[in-house]
């Protein structure tokens, strides 16, 4: 019912835009969000914005946990993406993360988990080298409360001993890219929870090749779920034995991880078949 209504209003909005001569003015938001115009202005200033189906956001049809909603943002169908920004219109904190892939060193793709305070559009905006923001997105149905619930770690007396502990793995893909999956223990407190814990979250992760060459940077904000679990597609040197990830939270803690490339460890067996 709700989905139908959204589709219907989207179609109506598009028809209205077409009737009015869409070329003349800004295109109506396909998700018909009440805050999109303000959010776009705040995020992109006066830059050109186009709604573009090549920027894909995938969320599940059903939300099991409002504090851990799996999301993937994928602009790999666009050439020369310099930045990929994930936004949630109706979250109290709208900016979720920004991925900055180094040219030819990482793909415009990130998969992670999101807190949602209520049902909201989830968008990905990809900035291409011509200065245009390409925006794609979906409406996520959710009961909400994910941003105002205390982190699970706050019920765990020894969380300080595990904060920053990282787990991860690299997979080699047929196209020469490497898939990086990384999980870092961190409460990612929004500062909005009922327990009055101030905001405490990982702000930045720098992904580098074995020789320290930058591959990608991710800026994280409060809506990224507790124990951030990220999936990226990076392109280290073919001979790199590892990828490192250096991170920092808003309290100045430094986190360092080194994820081995199993196929470049001579002591290990031949690499396993990769996915994509």
């Amino acid at each position, binding site marked *: 019912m709700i989905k139908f209504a959204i589709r219907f209003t989207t179609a109506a909005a598009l028809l209205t835009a077409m009737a009015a001569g869409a070329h003349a003015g800004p295109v109506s938001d396909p998700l018909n969000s009440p805050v999109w115009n303000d959010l776009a202005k705040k995020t992109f200033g006066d830059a050109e914005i186009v709604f573009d189906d090549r920027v894909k956001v995938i969320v599940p*049809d059903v939300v099991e946990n409002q504090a851990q909603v799996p999301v993937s943002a994928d602009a790999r169908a666009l050439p020369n993406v310099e930045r990929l920004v994930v936004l949630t219109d109706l979250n109290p904190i709208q900016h979720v993360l920004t991925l900055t892939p180094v040219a030819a060193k990482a793909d415009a793709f990130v998969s992670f988990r999101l807190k949602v305070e209520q049902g909201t559009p989830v968008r990905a905006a990809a900035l291409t080298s011509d200065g245009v923001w390409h925006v794609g997105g979906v409406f996520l149905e959710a009961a909400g409360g994910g941003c105002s619930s205390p982190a699970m770690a706050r019920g765990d007396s020894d969380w300080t001993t595990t904060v920053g*502990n*990282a787990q991860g793995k690299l997979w080699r893909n047929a196209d020469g890219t490497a898939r990086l999956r990384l999980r870092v223990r961190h409460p990612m407190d929004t500062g909005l929870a009922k327990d009055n814990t101030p905001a405490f979250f990982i702000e930045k992760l720098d992904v580098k090749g074995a020789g320290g060459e930058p591959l990608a940077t991710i800026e994280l904000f409060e809506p990224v779920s507790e124990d951030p679990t990220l999936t990226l597609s990076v392109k280290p040197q073919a001979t790199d034995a590892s990828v490192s990830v250096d991170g920092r939270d808003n309290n100045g803690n*430094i*986190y*360092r991880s080194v994820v081995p490339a199993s196929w470049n460890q001579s002591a290990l067996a031949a690499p396993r078949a990769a996915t994509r």
Partner: protein
Amino acid sequence: MTKFNDDCDSDRRRMLKLAAASIAVPLLPVFIANAAPLTYTLTPQKIGDGVWMIAGVQEAITFENGGAIANITILDSKDGAIVVDTGPSRRYGEQLATLARDLTGKDIARVYITHFHPDHAFGNQGFDVAKVAAPDGVIKGLAAMGNSFSDAMYYIARDWMRGTEIVLPSKTVTEGVEEIGGRKLRLMPRAGHTASDLAILDETSGTLIAGDLAFLDRAPTTPHADLAVWQTTLKELGDIQCRLLIPGHGPADAGKRALTQTHDWLIAIQEIIERCFNEGQDMPEAMQAPLPKAFEGMALARYEFTRSVMHLYTKLEAAKLPSVGAREK
């Protein structure tokens, strides 16, 4: 989440009456036509001597179905009706109690709750709490998780939930045979679908009431499941001689289909999800993995698989991704 309590409900009704009185008469029928009846259609199927099953629809909980998706069992006894599970809401529980009295011509002797999920335990208000019994783990689970279930139920089923509050069973069920009004019930507190699941064998009629330990032609749900424990329990239930098995969801089963299908599904989804994880996929990709042909006719297969990915993936990540770093000291 706001719940309409009785005061607010009756205030609303008073307001509506005032509003109705003050508007022109021709508008009144429109008013009535737009009000949802909020009455469940409970159709008892007689499946044995003094045994009825009220089949839940093979759907996810929606506003349209009011959450009436779980199977409910009513047993007749000399001492009164025995009801297993109470449905998703106060309204459902109240209608169910009336139905049980009508079918048996007696009052309610006992209510058993098979596990703490809202589609099975949110109708408790329809019954005298002194008669409501469940294993300790069910009571504890409902106490711990009831409010968050309630938020979700009010969000999805909306007006059907009006006035629904969590009522904890007052009697604790333990392993053993209980005789109620000439009916011998073997009570088997087990686990797997959740941390505490009650299976009941009515030895008098040979009916095994499996709760959500068994599903049939509807994909099993896993939000609180321990798959290894569930398999052990399924094996044990398979060894029990019975005439008919009533699964938590799906038609009554005179053979072993429900147990076999539940077993096969759990094995299959675990294999698929572990393979996706081992290949480096993240959840949104794993959710799109093809499902075996055997489950094509199963209701909600993709939906429950998607949910199971979310339930199982984080456990795999925590347990299986190698350690690669720490906080700089």
